[in-house]
């Protein structure tokens, strides 16, 4: 664990490089790959964010929470298909073993944005903070994508 000041300096230096601005996470050795959120739908105050989490830290990490200024509450959810029904549930966390890559994808794990404070528009982006069990945080920039324009069917 780095001290807050060290973390701050680290982030400040890295923010000078475009890789950070493009949504690549650098702190804490968990790469957040290709994060995106769905543009909000009219009258609907929730949305969802997807990404791949690549654990390069060499040790087990657990994503337990998330925060964002665009939503009242951010939760980590999963979907399971059982008895012919898709069931969405809040989960306590997503375990990332050393060198694991976990996919947060439609129909499975996702970051749930509840009580949106603003409309999420295609082409814009917003900050999202991923919080791990050890208290460390990753701040990522999440681009907003309109499903009509690009949906990845997987």
């Amino acid at each position: 664990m780095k001290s807050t000041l060290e973390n701050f300096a680290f982030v400040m230096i890295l923010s000078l490089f475009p890789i950070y601005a493009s949504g690549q996470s650098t702190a804490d050795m968990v790469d957040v790959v290709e994060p995106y959120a769905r543009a909000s739908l009219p009258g609907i105050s929730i949305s969802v964010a997807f990404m791949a989490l690549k654990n390069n830290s060499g040790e087990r990490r657990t994503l337990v929470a998330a925060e964002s200024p665009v939503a009242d509450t951010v939760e980590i959810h999963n979907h399971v298909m059982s008895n012919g029904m898709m069931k969405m549930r809040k989960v306590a966390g997503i375990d990332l073993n050393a060198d694991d890559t976990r996919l947060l994808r439609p129909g499975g794990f996702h970051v749930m944005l509840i009580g949106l404070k603003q409309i999420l528009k295609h082409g814009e982006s917003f900050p999202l903070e991923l919080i791990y069990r050890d208290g460390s945080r990753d701040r990522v920039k999440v681009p907003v994508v309109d499903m009509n324009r690009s949906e990845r069917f997987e």
Partner: protein
Amino acid sequence: MKNNRFIFIGIIAVVALSVGILASLLANRQVDKRQGITSIGGDFTLQSSHGPVTLSKELRGKVVPLYFGFASCPDVCPTSLNILATALRQLSEEEQRQTQPVFVSVDPERDDIEKLNLYADTFYPGMLGLTADLETIKEVAWRYRAIYKKVPLEDSAMGYTIDHSSIIYVIGRDGVIQSLAQHGTTPAEVTAKIKAALSNT
């Protein structure tokens, strides 16, 4: 505590039984090329922002791809509706004119018809967003074997969610279901099913 367990086991039994019945219905259904799947489905009247919509009246003569879901469903419903919309855009203009996609909300408590109209239209211009009172929805869903269950999420700011089956029903011009596209389907598969229904009568 013990009571709760019995109730829990009871619920499991009922769900297992329903799934069994559903599975056998789907397995044994007689798919007559002209008749379609007659063992499930049927006529319905639901509410839209422009008034009531009856399958055998306003929608007669059109192929109706229909999906049961709810608007605050963050992932599964938008994914399915987007697959449907993508499938519809693969059709010719004439084919699109003869097709009327419908989204039915099983969550009338959260989804009023004005909101549903806007919601459905976002995915595909002209897609209808329909709902009704809880009793009517329950009855229609039962006939279509669309299963759903309101589940409180005590640990979540969502309050509650609705577990639900995720199936696109392709209803023929005569109101009879022609085919089903199960959860995980692709736009190409849905396009093919709509085209088949369009060319059938």
